[in-house]
């Protein structure tokens, strides 16, 4: 009898560790996890680990590795295996590996490019969203579904060797004076760049561009060759841009050490890759003067959990951690660098950084809207792709 009872107990323990085996899907587990405290989640996560699981996660941002190390220091019985993933190949790899049963495939990922996340993972049922109830008050609603763990901005930054660029209106960048002097990663190779251009066609940004147009040229924009003001802007902007630099880091370093007067639209955080001696050559346009139109764009990094994970509670705890001050502002984490902003309003940027809080950027940057881009992608992609050359 004793033997039978111990066997039964062992069986129950094993079954309780495998949500799907008990009929608890990953989605159900995540729903339950959203209501738990971190301590409860840690207990559940330890059970998952003792059943042989480990959390394999992909990320397009290298800071995630540091966050993972900090996480494992905070929760020593949990094992995370980080793998950096190329932004370009993210969804290609994920759509083929999630649910395929391959060994050590990812349990969750931190990815950019919301529209592709929606199209390839969420709409296809390959990934699930998770957001903790406890955080709902400190994180804006539009950053919860799916959970955004950080925002990243790309800003207009120029080489100040010739003095001020005197750009006060975004339409200036479509003029002859800026021909081949605006550096931008090829939008057909850089998903966040094409998303930014598509966002410009939204009613809100189209109106802002019309306003800037009127201010620059003293007349209202009129429909002619282009169906919208945004499309005319995109046409002029892409005619002027230069694709010499194939990565944001190279662009930051290249502009800083290159010809005075060049302007780049690249990831703000990449300034950390610029050598100290050249850093003074760069001026962030928005910090110099307000730009009519916009002075860059902002895109999120989303956290999603995959349908075949064996450790949904560990994933949930890790997402909680990333959203918390400890995770986001821990040792060498995102908050220590310019250009990363937590959706958690209680986490402030360190005062010694040349940066501004998230709220500051709301008016001057084009924010990625997953739904809008998803809806307009097909229509606008062709327009952009044929102008890239």
């Amino acid at each position, binding site marked *: 009898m004793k033997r039978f009872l111990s066997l039964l107990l062992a069986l129950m323990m094993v079954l309780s560790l495998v949500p799907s085996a008990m009929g608890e899907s990953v989605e159900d587990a995540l729903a339950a996890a959203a209501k738990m405290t971190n301590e409860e989640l840690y207990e559940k996560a330890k059970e998952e680990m003792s059943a042989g699981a480990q959390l394999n996660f992909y990320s397009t941002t*290298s800071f995630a*590795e540091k966050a993972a190390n900090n996480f494992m220091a905070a929760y020593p019985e949990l094992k995370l295996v980080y793998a*950096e*993933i*190329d932004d*370009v*190949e993210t969804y*290609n*790899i994920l*759509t*083929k*590996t999630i649910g*395929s*049963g*391959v*060994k*050590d*495939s990812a349990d969750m990922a931190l990815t950019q490019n919301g529209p*592709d996340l929606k*199209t*390839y993972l969420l709409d*296809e049922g390959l990934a699930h969203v998770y957001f903790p109830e406890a955080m709902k008050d400190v994180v804006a609603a539009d950053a919860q579904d799916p959970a955004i763990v950080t925002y990243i901005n790309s800003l207009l930054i120029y080489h100040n060797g010739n003095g001020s660029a005197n750009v006060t209106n975004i339409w200036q960048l479509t003029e002859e004076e800026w021909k081949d002097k605006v*550096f931008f990663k*090829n939008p*057909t*190779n850089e*998903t966040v760049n*094409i998303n930014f251009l598509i966002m410009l066609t939204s009613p809100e940004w189209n109106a802002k561009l019309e306003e800037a147009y009127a201010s620059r040229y003293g007349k209202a924009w009129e429909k002619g060759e282009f169906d919208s003001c945004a499309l005319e802007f995109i046409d002029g902007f892409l005619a002027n841009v*230069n*694709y*010499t*630099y*194939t*990565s*944001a*880091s*190279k662009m*930051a*370093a*290249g502009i800083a*050490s*290159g*010809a*005075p007067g*060049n302007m780049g639209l690249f990831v703000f955080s*990449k300034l*950390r*890759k610029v*050598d100290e*001696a*050249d850093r003074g050559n760069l001026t962030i346009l928005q910090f110099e003067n307000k730009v009519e139109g916009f002075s860059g764009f902002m895109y999120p990094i989303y956290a999603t959990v995959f349908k075949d994970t064996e450790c949904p509670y560990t994933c949930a705890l890790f997402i909680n951690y990333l959203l918390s001050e400890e995770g986001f502002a821990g040792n*060498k984490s995102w908050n220590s660098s310019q250009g990363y902003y937590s959706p958690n309003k209680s986490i402030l940027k360190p005062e010694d950084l040349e940066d501004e809080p998230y709220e500051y950027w709301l008016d001057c940057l084009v924010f990625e809207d997953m739904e809008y881009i998803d809806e307009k*992608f*097909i229509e606008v*992609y*062709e327009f952009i*792709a*044929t102008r*890239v*050359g």
Partner: protein
Amino acid sequence: MRKPQPNSLLREPLLYRLRAFVAKPANLLLVFFLFVLAVLSLLPMVTMLSNMFTIHMGIEKRQYRMSTGDWTYVHFQKLFEGGDWSRVNFWEPLKNSLIVATGAGILGILIGGSIAWFITRSDLKCKKFISGVFVFPYMMPAWTLALFWTNMFQNSKVGGGNVGMIESIFGVCMPEWFVYGLFPMIVVIGLHYSPFAYLLIGGILKNMDATLEESATILKANRWTIIRRVTIPIVMPAILSTFLLIFSSGFSSYTVPVFLGSAVKTFTLPTKMRALIQAGYEGQGYIIAFISILFGCVILGINQWFTGKRKSFTTVTGKSGQVSLVKLRKANWPITIALIVFTCFVAVMPLISFALESIIRQPGNYSFSNMTLHFWIGTEASAYETGMIAGILLNPTMWEGVGRQVLLALLVALIVGTSGMLIGYSCVRRRGSRLSRSVESMAFFPYLMPAMAFGTIYLAVATSENFRWMYGTFGLLILVSVIKFLPFASRSGVNSMLQIAPEIEEAATIFGVPWHKRMIRILFPIQKSSILSGYLLPVISVMREVALFTLLVPKPRYLLTTMLFSFNETGYAQYGSAVTLLIILIIMIINWVTNKLTGASFDKGIGG
């Protein structure tokens, strides 16, 4: 007398023919390789073809309002319908790709072939040095040469206005067309593959019986006539093979056009293929991949037509004891100096450039005060905030990558080299038969497929239900490398076996020497170094391959080359330069060891 039954009449010749067929090892080898290649080489092709006619999840599904997996020809309609979309995504890039591939093919053969001739057929000075360093560019990933080109020639008047070495030292600004666009793409790809031309053509030239040229000399033919009427026809199979290889590589090159074409908005088909696949237009992307294969097939067809037309290219009918070198006389030193300068520029300068780039903190500043060894031997405390916990020589991740890459290269070389030699032997012995032609073509087929498309297809295969156990494994990397790099070895095998007259083996057969002994004791020693090229070329190819592995490695820093690409993509130029140097060093060590063990090496013009 019993009359034979009609059935047995039919059966006996069939059995007899079957027995005769099986008795020849070449036939058995051909059947074996036909089966293996049909599965492994045609599988990606079939997958690619089906992708051209099906709807994929995402954009295609939504745009065409169809279900994933539905059959359709809309991708063709869209890509070829005309208008800006076709022009920008297909016709313009196609034109650019053709210019680059053809130009690089011609340039590579001109440079590699000329140097091969000087090394093997003339009394040129400093041969050892020239042949030794000339192969360096082939050891580097092509895009690192593109980086070197921009490092050298970028200037304050083009691109981002970053000062390069030439402007920095001589104050000269090269024009934009020289720094970016089709011209540098042709030069870089041509230079990168010219050692390949040198290896293949040099091998044939070195093995060529000198009496052929001597006979022409006795008949009062002048030097140019001898080259035109004797030397070139003999090396023609190698020239065509080389052109085919360089053309296909140039046509499917992705990274070189990205680095050298983006600044002037010059795009090629592979760059558009990747952009289309990335944007979700997979069907159109695969059509582009298919078209690059078609172009390769045309060149392959020409190659086969030519080698088929000439019944024999036999040049080894017993080793000639004489080596007749053309005397360059007064032109010797000028040509030697010119070649030394040239090889130093294309081979040594990149190494110096990478060495310098790996020790400077601030780009473009080459002063001593800006130099540091932190990227090589920095510790956690002193290393920069660069994503590595230490300099590359102290980093365990880096050494794991080195170990995996070397092991992969050696294993692949072993499999590919042996297979290539056997394919070469069997195809040449059964030359002209349908079976031989099929195996030869199929062995070459994967080469025509862009590495990126190849990687994508094998990713799909390895994550499918029956093969998921392969995904993320080292075995998968071996498999794709073997298939992708078999063409090098099979071409090398065919070229070397073409030179051996069948009478040599027939004589041994008459004496009852078994097949394996004929191979080991006769054929292999005669063409030892040529056959060894079939082993060594895959080593180099694997050691510098990136695109093929990007999608198949479990993590970006799994192999040394994927780590290198990751460093360059993320802007860790110093680490990238250090790893490039390390790759070249490893290849040189393998080359040196091979040389010591077998006497063969790249610098001796493998094949001779």
